[in-house]
């Protein structure tokens, strides 16, 4: 059906079922106690429908639309990051080139030039941004600008482009197709967020990094790691070319680094004293609030898979 590999199609149906069930639970809760305000939850679930619809449509339409979609996601994330931090007015000219780097980076993805894909931002853009800043000539705040602009490019363009590169890797599991590993990564990362939250709510006692994120606890973290590791072992052979053993390992690293991606973005927000990075996704905040863990899990999972299987 739709030319989608069977297991990936089943995976998407599974995600939609989870979404329908969550929506039904929300509707039931809202009807049974009308005094409580569920607006936030309603917005959250509504946004989930939108996000999942957009991701599924761009993934299934064609490889090109999927790559363009992730390029656009990089653009939104980069723009949001550069808009919340303090920049010097003159930096806009260097930032312009980082925006231009987005289509170039995704072009390397589309022609499957792995060598260029992996060095373009860490090396060429890394060297080029300070050159552009030198030509502008403002030395006051130079170090800060050169560092921040490159970090933004690494987080939002380099990291996210790994999801797109997963799509172009040669297919090893015919039943999962090329979108199987992407679905696996996205689902596991989001499921990890939810598990750590739920375990934290149920058993949370000992704060793990109170200065950065007062709501994160050891109990939530460990509960999430165990759940995601176990579940990954069973889902990975279905959606990726990994076997059950490597599936456990993939889940383990996704869970650990998903946590760190989350708290890295939390630290950014603490530093500049904001609660959300934007208002683009109602009920969730900005695009970086939603992508935080994926910024870490995408490159980590990609290179794990690449090392083990390619």
């Amino acid at each position, binding site marked *: 059906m739709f030319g989608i590999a069977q297991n990936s199609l089943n995976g998407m149906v599974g995600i939609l079922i989870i979404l329908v069930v969550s929506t039904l639970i929300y509707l039931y809760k809202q009807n049974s106690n009308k005094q409580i305000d569920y607006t936030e939850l309603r917005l959250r679930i509504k946004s989930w429908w939108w996000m999942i619809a957009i991701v599924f449509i761009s993934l299934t339409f064609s490889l090109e639309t999927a790559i363009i979609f992730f390029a656009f996601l990089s*653009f*939104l994330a980069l*723009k*949001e990051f*550069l*808009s*919340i931090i303090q*920049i010097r*007015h003159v930096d*806009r*000219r260097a*930032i*312009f080139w980082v*925006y231009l780097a987005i289509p170039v980076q995704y072009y390397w993805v589309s022609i499957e030039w792995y060598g260029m894909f992996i060095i373009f931002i860490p090396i060429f853009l890394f060297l080029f941004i300070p050159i552009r800043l030198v030509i502008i000539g403002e030395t006051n705040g130079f170090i800060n600008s050169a560092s921040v602009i490159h970090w933004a490019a690494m987080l939002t363009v380099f990291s996210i482009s790994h999801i797109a590169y997963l799509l172009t890797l040669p297919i090893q599991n015919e039943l999962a197709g090329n979108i199987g590993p992407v679905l696996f990564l996205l689902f596991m990362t989001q499921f990890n967020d939810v598990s750590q939250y739920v375990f934290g709510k149920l058993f949370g006692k000992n704060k793990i990094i109170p200065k950065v994120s007062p709501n994160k606890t050891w109990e939530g973290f460990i509960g999430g790691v165990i759940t995601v590791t176990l579940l990954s072992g069973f889902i990975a052979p279905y959606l990726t070319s990994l076997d059950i053993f490597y599936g456990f390992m993939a889940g383990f690293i996704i869970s650990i680094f998903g946590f760190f991606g989350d708290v890295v973005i939390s630290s950014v927000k603490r530093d500049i004293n904001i609660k959300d990075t*934007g*208002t*683009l996704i109602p009920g969730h905040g900005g695009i970086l609030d939603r992508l935080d863990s994926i910024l870490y899990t995408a490159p980590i999972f990609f290179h794990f898979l690449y090392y083990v299987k390619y």
Partner: protein
Amino acid sequence: MKKIIKILFFAIIVRPIVFVILGLNIKNREKLPLKGEAVIAANHNSHLDTMVIMSLYPLSKIDKVRPVAAADYFMKNKFIAWISINCIGIIPLDRSGASSQEELFQSCHEALDNGDILILFPEGSRGVPEQMSRFKKGLYYMIKDRENTPIIPIYMQGLGNSLPKGEALFVPFNCNIDIGNSITSFNNSNDFNQQLKNFFESSMR
């Protein structure tokens, strides 16, 4: 016909740029006056300011929203004048000092009587990017005798980095917008400008 040109211009060109390339974070959206007559007083950093404010309105209402703009700048050549009048629907204002105060604001008063929403920039010019200039007194003289016209202040932050005065390079950044309570009573021009300034300063982060 003019209305159709304006709607198409905003639907096809302006709104995609404002909502997709720039992106807005809007605070207090419910305070935006959807019906005229009303005056919007905003800070001015970029040509994008007008486009962003007008994009807050649904396309069906866009022909009622009219920026008041300097005739010497926006009417200086035929091409820009055609765009200004037909696509944006500006009310040209003569800054040369040649016309009397009554003549100067006549078309503004006509538009307000007609139920339009006017956009004015009390700073007069876009000035230094992302910095507030001193307010001019023109807006005060225009509205001091119109007791029923609400004046709604809007503060925008970020557009001075996207497209500052004197630069052609457009760089996307999110724009933060804060809409204030309408200013209803004031004693004199200083008092009026002070109320505006207080709102702008409270909106700055």
